[in-house]
């Protein structure tokens, strides 16, 4: 499989199809047991644990179904987290920039329990954008949101894609997948179709 920079790809498949495994490999959380995964010229399978962590920090922005924000930690600090591990030099400016991008500039000092589900996911998206990664990896990002909020979040994904980000979306919902530009279907661990939308 090849994904070029700037694409918006949805990866679809039923449970057990191997989409989690694929996501873990694409997101450099795991190394392939056979074959190669090359992202931005780096063969991910050849990295050790520390290098893998650094690679994730720089090149992958995750958005999870369950948001995975740090509790009792402000929106600002949540977004800044990858920047702290990556020792980003202009951290403050960058945090403000991405919060602006997702429309949450005013919520910077709020706690996660004081914002809505949709807003929490936006914070997660801002966090994912912080380090200007090679790919944004979204795993069922609307799974915990109601349909109205889901539309808002998907609009945001479209916006950041228009801004130049590469978005890889894992989902089992066809109407969510339909919002991407390219849909790859997998089943039983193999690609069964790969079509432009």
């Amino acid at each position, binding site marked *: 499989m090849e994904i070029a920079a700037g694409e918006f790809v949805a990866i679809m498949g039923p449970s057990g199809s191997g989409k989690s495994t694929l996501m*873990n490999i694409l*997101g450099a*959380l*795991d190394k392939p047991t056979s074959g190669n995964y090359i992202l931005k010229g780096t063969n991910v399978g050849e990295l050790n*644990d*520390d290098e893998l*962590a*650094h690679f*994730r*920090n*720089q090149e992958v922005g*995750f958005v*999870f179904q*369950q948001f*995975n924000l*740090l*509790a*009792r*930690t402000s929106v600002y*600090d949540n977004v800044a*987290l*990858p920047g*702290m*591990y*990556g*020792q980003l030099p202009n951290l403050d400016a960058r945090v403000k920039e991405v919060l602006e991008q997702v429309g949450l500039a005013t919520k910077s000092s709020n706690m996660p329990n004081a914002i809505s589900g949709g807003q929490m996911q936006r914070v997660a998206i801002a*966090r994912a954008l912080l380090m200007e990664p090679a790919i944004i990896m979204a795993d069922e990002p609307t799974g915990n949101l109601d349909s109205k909020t889901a539309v808002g979040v998907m609009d945001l994904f479209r916006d950041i894609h228009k801004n130049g980000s590469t978005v890889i979306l894992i989902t089992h919902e066809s109407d969510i997948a339909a919002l991407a530009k390219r849909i790859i279907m997998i089943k039983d661990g193999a690609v069964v179709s790969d079509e432009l939308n």
Partner: protein
Amino acid sequence: MRALFIIKLALRGLITNKVRSLLTILGIVIGIAAVITLLSLGEGAQSQVTSTISSLGSNLVTIFPGKDFQGPNSVSAESQLTNRDYNFLNNKSRFPQIAEISPYTRRFLSVRKGSEELSSSVQATASNINVLLENLEVAEGSFFSESDVVSERNVIVVGSDIVTELFPEQTASEVIGQSVLLKNLSFQIIGVLGTRQVSGFNNPNSEVFVPYTTAASRLFLSAEYGSIYLTVADTQLVDAVVVQIEDRLSTFRNTSLEDKDFTVFTSEDILSTASQVTAIFTTLLSSIAGISLLVGGIGISNIMLVSVTERTREIGLRKAVGARQIDILGQFLVEAVLLTLLGGVIGISLGIGLALLIGRVANLQATLSLSTILLATSVSAVVGIVFGFFPALKAARLDPIVALRYE
């Protein structure tokens, strides 16, 4: 610097869970407080003992019957100290370096006035005891004289507590000339001693002094002396005089020098023994207190393990955004150490306060040294490192994928 950032993360981790953090360190706080309190009271006791013994004068030499300080009660009749020994030693030409010498026997008896009674330590001595012992001062009246001793008069010099307990409405000077009863014998008060400092171990103000001759024939009904006190004119010669006494007295008492049936102590001997005893006592008590530190440490481990489990998803997330194993290990280890250091600081403050409080209430001295505080602080840090390590390692080794899926 990355290390600074890890410390910041750790601090944040603790602050977000203040209640749990405080409960966790309770064991450490109690343990450190207990250790500090016991160590300061122990050090205080040590310096108090030292100053009490020093106040008696460094020229003081004491002779006790029996080998190795058995004392008069556990010694055979032949080995007792009696007037023979006293007279042998009380000889200026034989022992020119001995300045003052007195028999010294003490028993607890009741001192009675009318219906009031006070249990008192009765000291039977010669008339020069207030010269011999540097801390005996007569505030009112006078000490008994040589003639009182020779005539075996029923005279008594009392400590200040006798006045306050048995003559409640009267002053010390009013008490002079009145009588008290010891074992139904009437003794006339001829002097009142100045108030002396009370330590936790004895109250010198309830002591009374009577002539040793009177005590021998009428009070204790025994010609044996508990001990013989003497002072040496020149401090430099104390050890030489001790050698001389041991040599001559053993010959006089018909024993060999090695098997002599009496023991001679200098204040240095008593000081070092007393110091050793208090030191052992202090160490023992502090070790017991140290057990609670151990328990506290186990508590830390326990809570950190729970914390790791609770924060599994968080750890997975941190790894997903770029935390390496060492970052996670560092964060949790620093959290544990910060917790224990905080517990140490609180414990030290509490321990100091408690030591001062107990000192005031029980009339004990509490001494705090910098080395004790440093010891307590390092112990806290070490406890944190040791008991925090395993949970931190567990956290660091979590697989991010598994961790992220954790419910």
